[in-house]
């Protein structure tokens, strides 16, 4: 995944022999990822504030959060996602040490935890739909599903990236020198986690 531009940039945090260094000494990909995450704040900010705008404004008699939310259930899936951040950072520590077996274990665990989060959300949403809440029914339905749907899509993309890393590592294509690739996927993954921290509080917990 790391685009190695030989003459134009130092694409790894560590300056490799033959790689001209960058003006800041930092890798292009890492600067790019942080810039991208900065822009994602605006994306989720817009979705979250749309939700907050519509909070409590749905027409009376239509479905509201307390009709459908199952806080214990969602707490468990929040916990799962939170722990996946831990396993992600352990995976990074492992590859930086050169321990490829451990790296794979932690990457796969992260992917599985992320996948369970998404699966949990799918189950949660189908339950909501069965209870009469869908995209169309009112402001709450539209804003809830679109906000959490966007987040879930981001998690899914993260899981796909993690599985790709796993496969690359199996085939020997993820050596220690490419630890930064794991770091970048990790940054994305943690970002998706912190967005959920905000969503869980603002959407589920705050009345």
């Amino acid at each position, binding site marked *: 995944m790391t685009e190695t531009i030989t003459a134009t940039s130092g694409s790894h945090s560590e300056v490799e022999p033959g790689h001209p260094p960058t003006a800041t000494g930092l890798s292009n990909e890492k600067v790019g990822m942080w810039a991208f995450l900065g822009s994602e704040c605006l994306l989720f900010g817009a979705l979250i504030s749309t939700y907050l705008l519509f909070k409590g404004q749905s027409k009376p008699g239509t479905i509201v959060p307390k009709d459908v939310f199952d806080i214990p259930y969602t707490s468990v899936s929040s*916990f799962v996602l*939170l722990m996946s951040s831990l396993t992600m950072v352990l995976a990074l520590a492992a590859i930086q040490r050169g321990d490829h077996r451990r790296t794979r274990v932690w990457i796969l665990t992260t992917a599985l935890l992320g996948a369970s989060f998404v699966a949990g959300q799918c189950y949660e949403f189908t339950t909501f739909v069965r209870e009469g809440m869908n995209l169309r029914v009112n402001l709450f339905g539209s804003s809830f599903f679109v906000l959490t749907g966007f987040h879930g899509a981001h998690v899914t993309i993260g899981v796909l990236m993690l599985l790709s890393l796993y496969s690359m590592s199996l085939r020997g294509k993820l050596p220690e020198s490419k630890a930064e690739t794991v770091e970048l996927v990790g940054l994305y993954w943690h970002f998706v986690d912190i967005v959920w921290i905000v969503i869980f509080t603002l959407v589920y917990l705050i009345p």
Partner: protein
Amino acid sequence: MTDAAATTHEPGPVVKPSPAEGGTHHDHPSELEYVKIAAILAFITAAEVTVYYVKALKGVLAPILIVFSLIKFTMVVLWFMHLRFDSRLFRRLFVTGLGLATFVFTAVLTTFHVWTR
């Protein structure tokens, strides 16, 4: 032109390895420290859910929950995302986006009188 076989010598700046680079990270958390942070995060999550159910705290529920989630948010960003130890540039890039989002969307919601309805 002499020395034809050599690759073009492109003088670079003095590369100061930042703490995040290279094999030896002196201020890089250990695995145990990561687990401790995760434990704190789990504990705060449990606290959030507990507070949610305590009826006596209903009036101050929102502020407490917001504080809790801010703590979790910050801890993940600073330690798991390594922002505490990395170059200031990354912090600036992220904080600019975060700050801008907070500012403009708070302003938008204010014009809709969301806080006072």
